């Protein structure tokens, strides 16, 4: 339940920020969304087993699922890559990161 609430909170913030004008806030929203995706992946492996997946454990009933961890690792790094790209986009638009103004100018 705690994980579910965390995911919900992250999505809440993410969507709110994505609906903002400034590119930076949108990026921050996506950072939150990325967290949400990761926590969902973690949740998908089950959160009742939390022991470290190392070695060759005897009793599997308490060991955390390693597969989602691998997924999340991949996802984190991918999200990091895109975040950098977006950050650069945020400073190559206008003099500021005001996407709305940029859009307006483009449409004129």
């Amino acid at each position, binding site marked *: 339940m705690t994980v579910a609430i965390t995911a919900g909170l992250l999505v809440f913030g993410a969507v709110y920020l994505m609906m903002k004008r400034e590119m930076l806030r949108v990026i921050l929203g996506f950072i939150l969304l990325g967290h949400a995706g990761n926590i969902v992946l973690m949740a998908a492996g089950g959160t009742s087993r939390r022991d470290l997946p190392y070695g060759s454990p005897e009793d599997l009933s308490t060991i955390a699922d390693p597969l989602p961890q691998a997924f999340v690792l991949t996802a984190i790094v991918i999200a990091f890559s895109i975040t950098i790209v977006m950050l650069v986009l945020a400073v190559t638009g*206008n003099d500021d990161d005001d996407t709305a103004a940029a859009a307006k100018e483009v449409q004129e």
Partner: protein
Amino acid sequence: MSAALLPLFVAVPLMMAALLVIVGDRRVVHAVGLLGTMITAVGAAVLLILEFRSGGAIAHGISSWPFGIAIPFVADMFTALMLVVTGLLTIVCSWFAIASGRAANVYFAPLVLVLTAGVNGALLTADLFNLFVFIEVMLLPSYGLFVLAARHKGTLQQVAGARLYVTLNLLTSTVFLIGVGFIYGTAGTVNMGELAGLAKTDPTVAISGAVCLFALAIKASVVPVHGWLAAAYPATSPAITALFSGLHTKVAIYGIYRMYAVVFDGDSRWLWIGVTLFCLTMVIGVLGAVGEKTTRSILAFHMISQIGYILLGVALFTLAGLTAGIFYLLHHMIVKASLFLSTGAVEVRYGTGEIGKLSGIAKREPVIAVAFFIAALSLAGLPPFSGFVAKFTLILASVKAGQIAAVVVMLLVSLVTLLSMLKIWNGVFWGDSKSSEKVSTSNADDDAPATSPADGNLPEASPTGTAAAAASTSGRKQSVAEPASAAQSSGGVATKEAPTASATRADPETKASSATTVAERPRIGMALAGPAVFTAAITLGLGLGAELLLGLSATAAEGLLDTTAYVQAVMGS
């Protein structure tokens, strides 16, 4: 072909990309490396098609791990067809990019190769998380390609478009990731073979799968999540728009087809949602197209509309429907690219794609005009081009499936499609190039210093001159639907462009000074026209010789209708 070689579709382009980055800026090496790799890939994919003539599938678990552990790469007829057509498009668009100067940097070839690796991986993989990864492998180079421009000549529009493009795609892939998470949470696997049919029996898997499908639908730009594509695609260069139109949305569509066929087993309970949404997509897309004012935004909206058609095939989920849908998909990739490339060639050479700013291109550039017109008619579904076969088979399938409303929608949309194609034809290709010459002469009289001191090879008009030219152009065509607003809008652009003119002037692919008249520009050479002509020829060929592709599509459709071969291949049994 041994299934163990399937990963090479990803590995070889990736390796080549890495090597080209290491080699550095050697144009010829880059061109040869890029085209050579792509041609090899297409050749290999053709071999796959030959292998699957009578159906079947091959699969390989990467690294030879046991079934369920390894990431499986699978190929069947559908995959092979997509591999061929995406590869072909990449070649054609790269050719255009090289001809138009867009590829004149160290980044282009590696980025396109990585994009290819991503596309191929996304087409081949039967693992949903791996699909997510490959979608990202497609996307990252696309972000780079989107903004690619000559040094410091990137436009604000490009950046604004890229922002939209990146954010939307990131949203899409994150939603997809969350969907994959839910699938793993409910089914305990992300392997398509193990997931086969689960969504039909387990509602929790179904809703998880629905999240993934929804993400793919955003990527494919299905109504109501369609607008981003129309807004973003025209913002980049023509070559890249063409490339993306053929690859990105289409891989998403492929994903939808594949996932619905395998994971949902074609569950008939949800098909009505698809039919409704895809019909809406057709209508909204085509209406958007007919209202637009530049060639590429018209074409971008068309893409949305056409995607509705393509996806209707899967929403029918009959053999006829899937066959028609797959045929439509392949046809559309080629024709859309052709349209983007022919109008792109005009845009590259004449500096604008705005309706009403150009005229008489048909007389000056008959080859491009014919190529455009063939593709436009094909898009509108007129015989004897591939678009007719696509539309006809789809209508046939819809009638067979009792979706009469969809048929009505398709027919109406065809008409509006034609209307909007005529808009481009009328606004760009038709007319007299002489009349614009007159305008420019009068401009030259008014504004003596027409060239800028910095790089004075292209004449540049003052804002007022440009606005006047635009206004008089539209004034002359009284019969054009909205002369007043056209004049207003083009005038607006002209005034706005003036300050940025110095930034964009020398780049051959950006909007150059719009007052430069048609007659003064050098003609479009064969190198630049070639891609459009080539693809137009293909659509004609696919119309006349439709049977070949129809047969292959039917084989592919059978593989979707009965996924046994696919699933067995993935399961290694």
